């Protein structure tokens, strides 16, 4: 049921969310937007991805969220390619009867997108270009979902 889109173009959250969750008996909508930060004089960012895998990997993450929580709607949009600070990288939206489910599912989706969807960020700044290293804290964030949650 959840929709997944991987694209290089920017998108407008308001347009994407028109009618979101309108079909269920939805009481709560949570959205998350990831934005390119300008930390350390970052001038731009490039996001590489694995075209043959990205869509299906995200769809599996969404299916798992829908299995764990009572979601009436779910949307993931993730960009690749070149972006500058302030630009939107991605968005997640979840709709549910209850706020706890909408929040938990959105956080779950974000934690998995961070470490399990095939994207790699490269930052270009005053000291040249560097691939963003995965954070231990992002890997650790997954452990909270492996126990009894959901």
């Amino acid at each position: 049921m959840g929709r997944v889109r991987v694209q290089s173009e920017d998108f407008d959250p308001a347009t994407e969310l028109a009618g979101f969750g309108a079909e269920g008996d939805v009481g709560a909508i949570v959205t998350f937007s990831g934005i390119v930060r300008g930390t350390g004089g970052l001038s731009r960012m490039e996001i590489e991805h694995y075209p043959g895998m990205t869509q299906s990997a995200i769809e599996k993450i969404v299916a798992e969220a829908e299995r764990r929580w009572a979601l009436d709607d779910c949307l993931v949009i993730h960009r690749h390619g070149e972006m500058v600070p302030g630009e939107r990288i991605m968005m997640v939206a979840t709709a549910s009867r209850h706020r706890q489910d909408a929040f938990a599912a959105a956080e779950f989706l974000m934690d998995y997108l961070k470490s399990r969807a095939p994207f790699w960020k490269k930052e270009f700044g005053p000291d040249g270009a560097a691939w963003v290293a995965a954070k231990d804290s992002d890997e650790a964030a997954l452990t909270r979902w492996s126990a009894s949650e959901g």
Partner: protein
Amino acid sequence: MIDVLYFAWVRERIGEPRERIETEARTVAELVEELRGRELRYQLAFEDLSALRCALDQELADFDAPLDGVREVAFFPPMTGG
């Protein structure tokens, strides 16, 4: 014959995004060992396996996973999406 794909700094060290390889390797680990023996750029790319991830036919896999029937192997660093 198997398609081998590289992403991010693995791709940069190897110098190309993909290649077709003739191999007898039975597992991902054996394929890595074989590639390492080829040229310095492979040694550099596969220096530290703990810093690498792999996928078999677009599914995340372990390095000891068998290659039977696999058509596409991908090597890349830990993902940084979101």
